[in-house]
């Protein structure tokens, strides 16, 4: 009870910054799709970049608030999950679209 908002990201300022950035990174891709104008390929790339950026914003400004264990362990777990996701998702898409291509031959 006695420990108020400390210097570890538990501040109103951090939440507001995170929220504003998240709103921006949401409004840009939604606006592009709603009002069009750009080529399909370019729009896809902007959606992807905005999504990756927003995930980073959430991790930085929202999720780091709750950590109660040593940073290194959490980061290692996150990195390991990232490697697994890359291998499994990347591998699945690679194999499935390669099969698709071969079927079309």
């Amino acid at each position, binding site marked *: 009870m006695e420990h108020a908002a400390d210097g*570890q990201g538990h501040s109103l300022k951090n939440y507001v910054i995170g929220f504003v950035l998240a709103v921006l990174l949401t409004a840009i891709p939604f606006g592009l799709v*709603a009002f069009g104008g750009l080529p399909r390929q370019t729009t896809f790339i902007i959606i992807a970049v905005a999504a990756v950026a927003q995930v980073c914003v959430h991790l930085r400004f929202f999720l780091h608030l709750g*950590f*109660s264990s040593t940073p290194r362990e959490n980061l290692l777990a996150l990195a390991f999950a990232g490697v697994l996701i890359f291998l499994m998702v990347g591998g699945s898409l690679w194999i499935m679209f390669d099969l698709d291509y071969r079927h079309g031959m």
Partner: protein
Amino acid sequence: MTMHTAGAHAEHGEDIYGERAFGFWIYLMTDAIIFALLFATYIVMLPGTAGGPGPDTLFSLPRAAGETALLLVSSMTFGFATLSMLAGKRGAVLGWLAVTFVLGLGFIAMEISEFTGMIAMDAGPDRSGFLSSFFALVGTHGLHVSMGMLWIVVLAAQVMTKGLTAPVKSRLFRLGLFWHFLDIVWVGIFSIVYLPGVM
């Protein structure tokens, strides 16, 4: 990225809460892998509409925007609950938890109306491989949000009856991790499912 201990620094002899937070973090990472594979399945299944309706006829941009707004604001209000908890303001914690719950309820209501609408127009999960993967991915996320709301109710009851004790606070931290994590998954859903779907 800076990640620091929250509960463990505050009071000594509470390493057990740090361990629990780490265990919960491991669970979230495994959950992220489940969602990643559901995303991969969805992308592979995209062309598999079996002559049925595809993304362009099924998805609505305004609805996706509404669901996104509700979930993003709820992430913010949960942050306010966390701040109130750190300040030891019990009433404010309960108030922000209630706001977060209502926003989550609004999200789930929109999702249920979307799902029932799709099923009514013969676009349910049994219609095609594409729709099976859509309902599996978005439905799994919706189920997580529903569980998170149940968890909010349980913890609000604990805050009311037990007060902001160390165990209750550590549970609120873990619920916060869960709730913010679900918003990250939703960023993937609107970027991979809805936005490219209506383009």
